[in-house]
């Protein structure tokens, strides 16, 4: 049996996983954060942790967008997938974009759900 403090620590680690371990920044996520855990991470933990995420949108912003778009289950799965890919092979395969002079790999939710979620079907004729 693990001591109580170790158990608390592991639960905290779980929370960090949930919100996205990689450092996050709010710059690419324009919409309001509805997820209170992600909001807490972005407002209080990320500024301390520093801006280290090399992807855009940042992992927490990506997770928020994925949850907002596909619900908690698929959003959670996509966020986990993103955490694995963050800063590795994706940086050489996806286009990059300069933010504050720093190169960031462009990897929005739409670049990862295009094969099963078609947004174009929902578009209507805008001219009348």
């Amino acid at each position, binding site marked *: 049996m*693990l001591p109580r403090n170790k*158990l608390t620590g*592991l639960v905290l680690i779980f929370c960090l996983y949930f919100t996205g371990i990689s450092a996050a920044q709010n710059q690419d996520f*324009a919409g309001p954060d509805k997820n209170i855990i992600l909001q807490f991470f972005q407002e209080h933990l990320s500024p301390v942790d520093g801006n280290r995420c090399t992807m855009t949108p940042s992992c927490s912003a990506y997770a928020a967008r994925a949850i907002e778009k596909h619900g908690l289950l698929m959003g959670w799965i996509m966020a986990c997938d993103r955490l*694995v890919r963050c800063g590795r092979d994706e940086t050489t395969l996806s286009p990059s974009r300069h933010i504050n002079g720093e190169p960031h790999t462009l990897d929005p939710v739409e*670049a990862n759900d295009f094969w099963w979620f078609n947004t174009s079907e929902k578009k209507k004729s805008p*001219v009348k």
Partner: protein
Amino acid sequence: MKPFLLILAILFGTLCCFCPLSAKAQQMVITPDMQFSYADSLYLAKDHETAIVEFKRFVHFFPGDERRQEAEFKIAMCLYRQQHYHDAAKAFNRIILQQKLTPFTRESYFLQARAFMEMGNTGYAQVVLQNFLKLTEDVDTKDKIYQELARMHIASAASLDTGTLETAQSYLALISPGNAERFGVHRQINTLEKAQTAHQKNPVLSGIFSIIPGGGFLYCGRYKDALVSFFLNAGLMVAAYEAFDNDNTALGGVITFVETGFYTGNIHGAITAAHKYNKAQKITILNREFSLGPTLDAENNGLGFSLNHPF
């Protein structure tokens, strides 16, 4: 006294005669030509904001002028160049609704379709051109429509719509032999064929390989992702096992929950990686003939693709 009165009368008369004239001479009379050429000069100087105002002024004050449609077309063009695609599409629509088939109406169909494409509404862009295809009998115009429809399908090939390139090819095949050489149809068809037979990764296979964490990534040539996925999943699995083995079911449950996310994420990521690989292969080949550049869809915060080809 009389000569003085006479001089005064002459002076008064002169003043009466010339003052209104001089005031009239100072009044600026703007003719339709002056207004149109001023607006046109702004249009040529790419001062679109001011050009729109001046063309609107022309339309308002000279509604009967024969250049009215040209002015309206140039207003729409200014909006298009300013990337106000929604307003541009509406402006082109007003010209199209005038029924009279002029060169400006013809161009309006094409540009309205392009405005829809820029807005990401490929389906409606195609509808506009299909409608135009029904209205026109001119072979050159029809060929241009086929070419434009093919261009649209090639551009949307980036979104992995199945059969898109085949449809593009079928439109190119409809172009008359007279214009085929001018448009470089055979060269384009060859490129499309190469793109369709490009080496591809099977997404299903990639998903199956992901049963062993990282296997799918490895199949798609993403070695770093594969390594991280394997060790992370293995570590979490061992941790969950140890937690349950030590009767720490709460911790085991939490780790299992986290691990489930990473494991399914690994499968999702591997399938996505295969699709991304296929898309990249297709775009690389298409880029040799066309200019497919990745762009950012600001509205949806997603990736889009623009296609340019010198016709």
